[in-house]
């Protein structure tokens, strides 16, 4: 989860999020180069006397056409690479359904056992010491680590959005439509997210918690829940 006053990304916990963070760094470096150039040109213009002698500017017009084209290519190529990477669907080991309601999530594991539960936010008054306010839930999603997971997302009433920043996942939950996303967690841990589409009075109070564990722990958990 994010620390207080954190502006940057959370630590990446999936390969896609790692790629997104790297692309973000790349985009900022290009932005730094452009800002340096603009700052320099601005300084020059401010020091220059105004004149109306310019009649022809072929060279500078060529430069300020070609340079932005180069910048666009520098940004577009890695961006498109990640875009297509995000759409790849490896054969998933597990399919999970997430259904958004006002104002909680329902999760269904129907691959091998009929397992379904609701996930409500833990109210602040019931929060144990050391737990995170407005982020904890009564039932977390537990998934095996280092396994491709497919999540099918929909909603029961109004628009919601299933988002977990550390995994680089955000997908809209639309009533009457099934949206699919997939991810792999690279390490065990607990990853927090929040509903990301305005959905009513308690939109801020329907968090998502994904717990990534080694496979044997996941099997033990699913056996416990389905018994």
């Amino acid at each position: 989860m994010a620390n207080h006053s954190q502006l940057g990304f959370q630590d990446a916990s999936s390969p896609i999020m790692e790629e997104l963070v790297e692309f973000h760094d790349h985009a900022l470096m290009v932005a730094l180069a452009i800002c340096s150039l603009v700052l320099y040109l601005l300084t020059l213009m401010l020091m220059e006397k105004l004149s109306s002698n310019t009649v022809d500017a072929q060279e500078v017009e060529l430069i300020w056409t070609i340079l932005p084209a180069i910048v666009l290519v520098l940004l577009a190529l890695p961006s498109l690479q990640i875009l297509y990477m995000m759409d790849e669907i490896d054969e998933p080991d597990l399919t999970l359904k997430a259904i958004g309601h006002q104002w909680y999530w329902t999760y269904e594991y129907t691959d091998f056992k009929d397992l379904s539960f609701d996930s409500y936010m833990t109210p602040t008054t019931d929060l144990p010491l050391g737990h995170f306010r407005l982020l904890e839930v009564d039932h977390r999603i537990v998934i095996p680590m280092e396994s491709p997971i497919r999540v099918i997302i929909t909603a029961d009433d109004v628009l919601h959005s299933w988002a977990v920043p550390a995994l680089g996942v955000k997908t809209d939950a639309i009533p009457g439509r099934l949206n699919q996303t997939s991810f792999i967690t690279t390490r065990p841990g607990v990853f927090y997210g929040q509903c990301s589409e305005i959905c009513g009075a308690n939109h801020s109070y329907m968090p998502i918690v994904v717990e990534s564990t080694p496979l044997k722990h996941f099997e033990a958990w699913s056996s416990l829940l389905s018994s």
Partner: protein
Amino acid sequence: MISVRQQSFKLLGFLDVKNVPCARESVLYGSLGSLVVGLGHFLATSRVRRSCDFAVGGFICTMLGYWFYCRYNLAQQRIRQRMLKEGMRNKMLFEGSSFDPEKKQTGNERSNS
């Protein structure tokens, strides 16, 4: 991949040169390149204005040039790390079993000799 985060130092308010890999070196090499190109041009032509233009151009080109070089090497290193991690895990998983590639190699050597 988690690395130990240092206190951030943001250039122009947005680029964290301490925590972004290759950023610090890119900016430093860019500054050096800017100095070399600008000073060199001035010593050759004694034109201050044009030398400043060349200095800024040198800064941007050197900075971006080193950035791409460093990020390319970093990406290759990450790929090698992933392959190594995968190889180590497969070795542990398959050691002694019929899928063990070392066992197949030893078997081939015995049949050849």
